């Protein structure tokens, strides 16, 4: 399928943000993104505004503070999605269509049970949690990520393994943890299934602690995908570094493209090849 025919659903509700940057990232690459309110997908609006998830080839959940991050980050949006469109989401993911979540969107995917989703496409209960940073503060600054995926994740196909990319982090709840008694086993499964996508590193490329790992995430994890590779979530914001001049050192480098661009290029390439 041609890139100009690829429809991208960028989900929004009260409190999402960065959806404009995400919209522009896809638009600038020639695809057809659309900002879609959750109610348009669940049919709670007038006929003309209704949308079907299967009108799109990709679902993106942007960052922000959906529903004020009340209860837990991402929990309310996840619960609303699950109650109204659980079957659609399962079918969508099962068909191989990509689902991406950035920052708050990652929290939503984990709360939904679409990540890490070890044994089924979407689990009834969450298997992990993105919880309060070790610092108990909102951590907002550029972070360095090493791409660790060996080719499973459809959102990073264009990024060479071991490449170190700069993307800004901005979150208070980004520390991924597993049930205490399952911690070792879950982590091993992530590694064995090639589900680890990005890990925080220092400028030397070490898996360093704070401040390089802004939240205390286990195994320095910044982003993961499901075992099939088509559902992907990450805490840092690729849409905020689409151009080279969005990098903090842009005056000293001559980068035309920002490090985040490859995420959007990769997923479009995957859709073009598969559908």
């Amino acid at each position, binding site marked *: 399928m041609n890139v100009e025919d690829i429809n991208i659903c960028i989900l929004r509700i009260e409190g999402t943000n960065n959806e404009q940057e995400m919209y522009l990232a896809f638009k600038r690459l020639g695809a057809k993104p659309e900002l879609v309110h959750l109610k348009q997908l669940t049919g709670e609006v007038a006929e003309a505004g209704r949308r079907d998830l299967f009108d799109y080839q990709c679902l993106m959940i942007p960052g922000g503070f959906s529903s004020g991050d009340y*209860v837990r980050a991402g929990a309310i949006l996840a619960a609303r999605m*699950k109650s109204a469109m659980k079957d659609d989401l399962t079918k969508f993911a099962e068909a191989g269509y990509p689902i991406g979540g950035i920052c708050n969107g990652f929290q939503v995917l984990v709360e939904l049970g679409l990540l890490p989703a070890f044994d089924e496409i979407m689990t009834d209960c969450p298997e*992990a949690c993105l*919880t309060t940073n*070790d610092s108990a503060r909102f951590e907002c600054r550029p972070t360095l990520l090493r791409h660790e995926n060996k080719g499973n994740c459809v959102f990073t196909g264009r990024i060479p393994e071991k490449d170190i990319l700069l993307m800004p982090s901005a979150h208070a709840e980004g520390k991924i943890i597993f*049930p*205490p008694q399952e911690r070792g086993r879950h982590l091993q499964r992530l590694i064995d299934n090639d589900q680890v996508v990005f890990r925080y590193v220092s400028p030397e490329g070490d898996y360093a602690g704070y401040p390089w790992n802004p939240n205390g995430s286990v195994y320095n994890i910044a982003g993961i995908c499901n075992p099939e590779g088509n559902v992907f979530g990450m805490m840092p914001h690729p849409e905020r570094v689409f151009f080279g001049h969005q990098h903090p050192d842009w005056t000293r480098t001559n980068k035309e493209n920002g490090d985040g661009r490859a995420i959007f290029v990769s997923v479009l390439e995957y859709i073009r090849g598969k559908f």
Partner: protein
Amino acid sequence: MEIDVTISLKKGVADPEGANTKKALNLLGFDDVVDVKSMKTFRIEMDIEDEKKARAEVEEMCKKLLANPVIQNYTIEIR
């Protein structure tokens, strides 16, 4: 009927909010404080008479939204 649902962190899960509050209390001179745990209570008002039914429904609320079983426990108390 009013029901209190209290969400607390499971044993072994880090509680930075509690830890930071403890530190602040110690700095304020409350030297006897040895541990602080943060919890969250939702007071839910329901138009329902049957206590058993209410409890079952609140249980369902905890599973669907209020608690993440990976890190949190919940207690339900009918007031």
